[in-house]
């Protein structure tokens, strides 16, 4: 009976636009209503290393989402990155704009019932080479790929009043630049968000704490140059990412730590990817 209690929303006390939980490590599941915006800002620290070299990239990634219609949403993602490469003897840095991502998502199927929803949405995207791919030191410090790319995929969401499961399958053609054909990428991501607090919905529930666990699988073909494969590229990377979301009516504070289970063929192995971010609707 306690789970059937009325959740009293004192909406009249505020004109806040709602924020709704969604995955932390991928954006395609972000829910947005018609004529509303979401802005998500995340600070992402990505560290990779081997025995005597480390590469640390700290990025501020801003994503703006707009609901064109109840079923069509458009996304823009813009990263600003500062990278530092440390070797035994030297240290190099590079800071600037990364590649811009554009995406459109169409909710093709939606099945709603009392306290539940299932949504299926294909999406298409494009990557614009707004980041500088030239560096004076190491290719590892390049801020952009120098290539146009496109992506397509499918995102599914099943949500109840207690938990939400988001998952996506995506393919990306990474294009080519400077005689390098970048390998295509296939990704699978899944995110389970479970309400930890309050355990039961009540009249005073104005903020939620969600526990989040996410899985990220990326498989990339090897890059080729003049028909020759680059053995230090491509491969399959698998991450698991525990996280937390603190949700209020105006904003969401979220954080996660992506831990590698399997690393790809890149010369430097991923150590971790840490994220902290704020999301709001308006």
């Amino acid at each position, binding site marked *: 009976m306690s*789970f*059937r*209690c*009325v*959740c*009293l*929303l004192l*909406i*009249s006390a505020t*004109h*806040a*636009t*709602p*924020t*709704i*939980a969604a995955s932390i490590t991928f954006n395609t599941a972000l*829910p947005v*209503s*018609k*004529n*509303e915006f979401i802005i998500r800002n995340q600070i992402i620290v990505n560290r990779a290393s081997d025995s005597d070299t480390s590469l640390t990239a700290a990025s501020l990634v801003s994503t703006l989402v707009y609901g064109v219609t*109840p079923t069509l949403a458009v996304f823009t993602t813009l990263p600003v990155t500062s990278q530092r490469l440390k070797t035994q003897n030297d240290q190099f840095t590079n800071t600037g704009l990364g590649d811009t991502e554009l995406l459109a998502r169409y*909710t093709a199927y*939606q099945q*709603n*019932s*009392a*306290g*539940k*929803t299932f949504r299926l949405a294909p999406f298409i995207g494009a990557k614009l080479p707004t980041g500088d791919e030239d560096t004076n030191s190491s290719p590892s410090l390049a801020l952009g790929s120098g290539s146009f790319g496109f992506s397509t995929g499918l995102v599914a969401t099943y*949500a*109840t*009043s207690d938990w*939400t499961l988001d998952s996506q399958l995506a393919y990306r053609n990474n294009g080519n630049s400077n005689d390098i054909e970048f390998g295509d990428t296939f990704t699978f991501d899944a995110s389970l968000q479970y309400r930890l607090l309050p355990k039961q*919905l009540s009249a005073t*529930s*104005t903020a*939620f704490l969600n526990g989040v666990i996410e899985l990220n699988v990326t498989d990339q073909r090897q890059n080729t140059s003049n028909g020759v494969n680059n053995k230090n590229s491509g491969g399959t990377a698998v991450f698991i990412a525990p996280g937390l979301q603190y*949700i209020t*009516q105006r904003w969401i504070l979220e954080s996660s730590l992506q831990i590698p289970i399997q690393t790809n063929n890149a010369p430097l192995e991923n150590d971790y990817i840490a994220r902290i971010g704020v999301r709001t*609707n308006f």
Partner: protein
Amino acid sequence: MKKINTSLVITVLILISANSLAADQQHNLRVDGITCPFCVATSAKALQKIDGVNKINADIKQGIISVCADQKADLNDEKLTKLFLDKGFNYRGKETLLTCAIE
């Protein structure tokens, strides 16, 4: 004395009648797809823009959004269907009570 009593009764009846006409009704809207208070909030924001809407509650488990509004509030099915579709939900109908029980 009898005249005074009659006037008093008539006055009381008029007051009761006026009060009844001015009192809010409660509309229990059945809405599919809401899964959290924040899902409701986006719809509540739109509902509040309708003249005469005063209070809003939600029972997420049951998929019910309760709206207390005066009798001039325009809450017809066509309008509500569009309002909830724009928010990504499905309006399934409503039950109207003569008095508002939302605190």
